[in-house]
Structures are given as structure tokens and as C-alpha cells.
């Protein structure tokens, strides 16, 4: 039994009368790929926002890598090795793609306002990070646009930049919010092939929101189904696909 990298314990998040997350508990085992599906507005992104520290949960706890991270700031959670991507890409738009990727590197010595003045203190690290950034740019196929401003690339390329940034951050657990939304089916499969490879070769763990079930189900070990803020079904992809509740939610809306 592998250990659980992420444990969400009975988490609630309401917006006024809207019960966006209504008592969710789930686990993501180390080195697995876990899916999170559910119709529009079922609370998936809100759950990611709570896990990554953007919102504080009203109730409940979040345990990451054995530590209680409930209520920590996003940048503190990032430091522990958990990053998330955004459903609607959030580029640092006046920076190039290359800079968007290298900018996500962790513990940059030159980010200190004093050390920044002494290049010899951070040059080597910066050059190493540059090589690493180019590696992930190659990996995500962004090489042709890496020198372009991130505001000038296509939506699909922005999604890939999000992924490259997440990889650059050297996290253990990556939450991906619809990594294959808005890209063609071939590219969607390519992205998931990449994720599979990352899990195998880099021992990463993924928790993925995705609407394209036909692609997602071919790659995930386990799926949670959310509806109106609650987990209504869970299991291996085949089990979930055949679950009458799930069929009902997706067909009945």
C-alpha cells in the first residue's frame, strides 16, 4: 500500500448560499494519477483552490506529505512541493515563455533584493535553471515559441506553458485543472502521454480535473466524481464509467 501524498479530510467551502465544496474527503496516493470529474459548477476548481491555499476552507483539513497545510498561503504550500495550474491560463504576460518557465523555479538566490546585486552569488544557479527550463520547454514542445511574449501565444500553448511552469517548480504533487481543454484530440493524448511519462520517469504524482473522460480514463488509476460540491462516486475508471449515478449525472445534468 503506497502512502498517501494528499489527504483531503471533510472539507467545506461555501460562497454565501452556494455550497461549492460540501464535505469532501479524498486521498491521492504517492506516484499515482488521480482524476477528478464532474459537471460544470460542481466545485472541482474550488476544491483545487482550497487545496492550493487560494481559499481557506470553512471546515476540514488538508494533509500534504504528512503535514497539515490547512490555512497556509499558496507560496508556502508551493515550497512544500505542491503546485497547481489554472483552468484559464494565467500567464505573466509581459515576460517571454522562457521567462515564464524559469520564473517558477524554487529557492532562487537572486530573488533576494540584496543578493541580486552580486551576480556571482546566483549566476551558477540561474544558468542551471535556464538549462532545466529549456529541458521542460522541449518536453512540452514549446521550443518554437519560447522566445515569444507569453501574451502572444495560442491558448493551447498557454496551457502547455502552465504545465512547463509546474514542472519547473520541482513539485512532488501537481494539480492540473483541465490540462487538455481546448486542444485537439491528438494533442490531448500527447499531453496525457507526457503526464504518464512524468509519473514513470520522474516519480511525480498528479491530481487532474478533466472533462474529456474518453482521454482521461485511459490514463488515471483512480477517479473521483463530484456533483454539487460532494463526492458522489469513486473508483477505477471502468467502475466509474459503468456507475449508474455517474451516467445519470452526465446525461441528466
Amino acid at each position, binding site marked *: 500500500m503506497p502512502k498517501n501524498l494528499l489527504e483531503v479530510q471533510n472539507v467545506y467551502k461555501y460562497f454565501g448560499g452556494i455550497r461549492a465544496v460540501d464535505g469532501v474527503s479524498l486521498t491521492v496516493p504517492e506516484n499515482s494519477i488521480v482524476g477528478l470529474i464532474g459537471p460544470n459548477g460542481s466545485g472541482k476548481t474550488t476544491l483545487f483552490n482550497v487545496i*492550493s*491555499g*487560494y481559499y481557506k476552507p470553512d471546515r476540514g483539513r488538508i494533509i500534504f506529505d504528512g503535514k497539515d497545510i490547512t490555512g497556509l*498561503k*499558496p*507560496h508556502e504550500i*508551493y*515550497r512544500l512541493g505542491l*503546485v*497547481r495550474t*489554472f483552468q484559464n491560463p*494565467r*500567464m*505573466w*504576460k*509581459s*515576460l*517571454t515563455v*522562457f*521567462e515564464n518557465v*524559469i*520564473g*517558477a523555479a*524554487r529557492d*532562487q*538566490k*537572486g*530573488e*533576494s*533584493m540584496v*543578493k*541580486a*546585486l552580486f*551576480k556571482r552569488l*546566483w*549566476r551558477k544557479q*540561474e*544558468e542551471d*535553471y*535556464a*538549462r532545466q*527550463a*529549456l529541458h521542460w520547454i522541449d518536453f512540452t514542445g514549446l*521550443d518554437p515559441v*519560447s*522566445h515569444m511574449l507569453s501574451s502572444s501565444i495560442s491558448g493551447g500553448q498557454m496551457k502547455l506553458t502552465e504545465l512547463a*511552469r509546474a514542472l519547473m*517548480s520541482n513539485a512532488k504533487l501537481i494539480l492540473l485543472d483541465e490540462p487538455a481543454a481546448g486542444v485537439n484530440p491528438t494533442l490531448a493524448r500527447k499531453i496525457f502521454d507526457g503526464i504518464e511519462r512524468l509519473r514513470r520517469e520522474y516519480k511525480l504524482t498528479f491530481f487532474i480535473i478533466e472533462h474529456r473522460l474518453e482521454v482521461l480514463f485511459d490514463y488515471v488509476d483512480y477517479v473521483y466524481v463530484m456533483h454539487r460540491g460532494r463526492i458522489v462516486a469513486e473508483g477505477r475508471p471502468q467502475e466509474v464509467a459503468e456507475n449508474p449515478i455517474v451516467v445519470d449525472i452526465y446525461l441528466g445534468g
Partner: protein
Amino acid sequence: MDLSSLLEFILQYLAVAGVYSLLAISMNVEYGWAGIPNFGKAAFMAVGGAVAAVIATQIGPMLFLGIEGAVPGTLEFFGRYNGEILPAYSQNPLATWGVFILSAIVGGAIAALLGVLFTYPAVRLREDYLAIALLMSAQLIWIVLRTVKPIMGGTMSLILPSPDFKCIAAAIVGGTPPKILVEAIRTGFIWLLVLGYLLYVEKLMGSPFGRKLRIVRDDEVAAEAYGKNVVRARLEAMVVGSFLAGVAGAVYALIHLRSVNPDNYLPDITFMVLTMVLVGGVGNNIGSVVGGMVIALVDRLGYMIGTTLAMSYGVSWGGYLNYLVYGVAIILAIFFRPQGLIPEKPVKTPAWKVYVELTGRRPSFIQPIWTRIKRGVGRVRSRAQESA
């Protein structure tokens, strides 16, 4: 206009342009790099002026002249200051430099501290609220300076001992130097400081620190998600910007105006400086200097036209013409050239060297300026040959 008054006008202009450039560079750190619209810029300058006043009247005499200081606002102040302290300064060039250097350092440090203090309560808010909070803090400082007499002496101008440039000029020519040379050296010194500011800020920003500020400015939600402490980054930008503004305030008071008055630090300075950054190029340090030079020209011309109108035609509103020009400049800049005269460039860290090595691609923005100029000249030449 004869030659010497033209020369005087040019020196006056360059001195003003230099001081404005210092302020524009400092504003660019906050607004250009970190996206903080510091509507309280005047107050951080005022801190430099206030510290200069306190040091010149109270601390400097003890420290550098060996006589007792005088507290502005007290009964015996003018007698002692004008009768004893200022004459003693004029006999002692080194003391005047001591006052300047100490004022610049302490003024910068206190301004930096206040930058953190004023920003902290509103640092998490949207940038417009932050701007309002800073504007109100600036007004607060202004009121304190007007009412607490022992600082600047209240609402009347207080003459300050300017660092002595005459002895430098005298050392160059031997004997009594012409006034114009002294002024030229004074202006040259201001531009030396501009160069220092530029070198410092370029070095600071061409680093992961500069990249971090832009990341926070461009999207703070994604910045937090990727490990940037947004609050801290903003406060750091305020520390740097306010320090530079505090030093610039000491330069403005001691070297340029050679006097202080709380009313020299009204919000119109802030908005003038903001105009410089917007016109020159948001996020580009050289652009800030260009903006400072453009606005200083408008400022000087406006002043000249204003006084001419007032003296020859009895028109009283001429002095406000330049404000009209600032307004138009802001609108034109925002509509037609939002990136400013010199647009911002990607952050130039050594990462780009690795990029060029590994990809074999050399994006135009990382080529040295001379190859870009050469290419531009080449293009113009080949076009000229084509048409010939």
C-alpha cells in the same frame, strides 16, 4: 537672449531634468517594475528634505561645525541660524558636504522605513486602494511638516547650506571661479547621481529579483501559486523606491533648491513624476530618464511662458499651462503609445546566454545595442540604395 543667459537656462533645465530623472527612476521601480502606483511619492521626497533641514539646523552644527545647533520655530532660531550657523557653514566646505551625505543616507533610510509602514496596511488590497492609501499618507506627512515647526520651521522657506561646489570649481580654474562654472559642476554632480541610480537599478533589476517583481505585477495569483511572496515582493519594491526617493529629496532640497518648504512637496510633484514614467516607458529605466528630460523641458518652458505672459500681458494663469500639457501627455501616451517612448525589455539575466547557447536562437532583445543600431543603419542604407 544672449549667450550667457541661454547657457544659464540650459544648466537650469539640465539640473531640473536630473532631479526629475532621479524621481522618475524611483517611481519606475515601484510602478514600472512592481505595479504599485505610488501616489505618495512627494512625501518620500519630503522625508529627504525634512531630514536635510533637521541635520542642517540641529545636528550638523554640533557634528561638523563644533557649535550648538538651533531649533527652527524657536524665538532665537533666526538670529542664531542666520547670524552664526550659516556663516560658519560658508567658511567650512567640508561641513556642507557632511550635511549632504548624512542627509542623503538618513533621509533615504527613513523614507524606506516609511515606505514599508505606509504600504503594509494596504499591501494586500487592489492597486487603486493602495494608491489612495499612499496618497493619504503623503498628505499626512505634509500636514506634519507644516505644523511641527522644529522640523522645517513651519510654512516659510528655510535656506539650507548647499554642498560647496565653489571650492571644486576653484580647484579647477585656480582663483575665484565664474558662477556659471560652479553651476555647471553642480548640474554635473546631479547627473552623476542619475548615472549612479541607473547603474544600481539596472543591476538590481537584471536579476531574478527584477523578474520576481514583474511576475508579481503581471499576475499576483499565479505569482503566489509559484512560490512568490507577493506581500514581501511589494514591500521590497517600496523599500528600494522610497530609499531612492528619500535620497532624491535630499538632493532636491540641498543641491537644487537650496531651501525647504513643506509646500515644495505637494501631490502635483507625484503626478508629474508619474507622467514621466508613463511617457518615458513603464518598466524601462532609461525611459524614465527620457521621461524626466521631456517633462522637465515642458516644466521650464511652461515656467518661462507663464512668467512672460504674467509680466507682459498681466495674464495670471500662464503658470498652469504646463499642467495642461501633462494631462494631454498622459492621455496621448495611454491611447497611442501605452508602452511609452522606450518600451520595457525582457529581464536580462545570464539565463539568456544559456538560451542562446542551447537553442542557437538569438532573440533581438538580447543583442547588444550596437548590433541593433548597426542593423538599423544597414537597413536604412540598403533602402536608400534601392530607391537610388
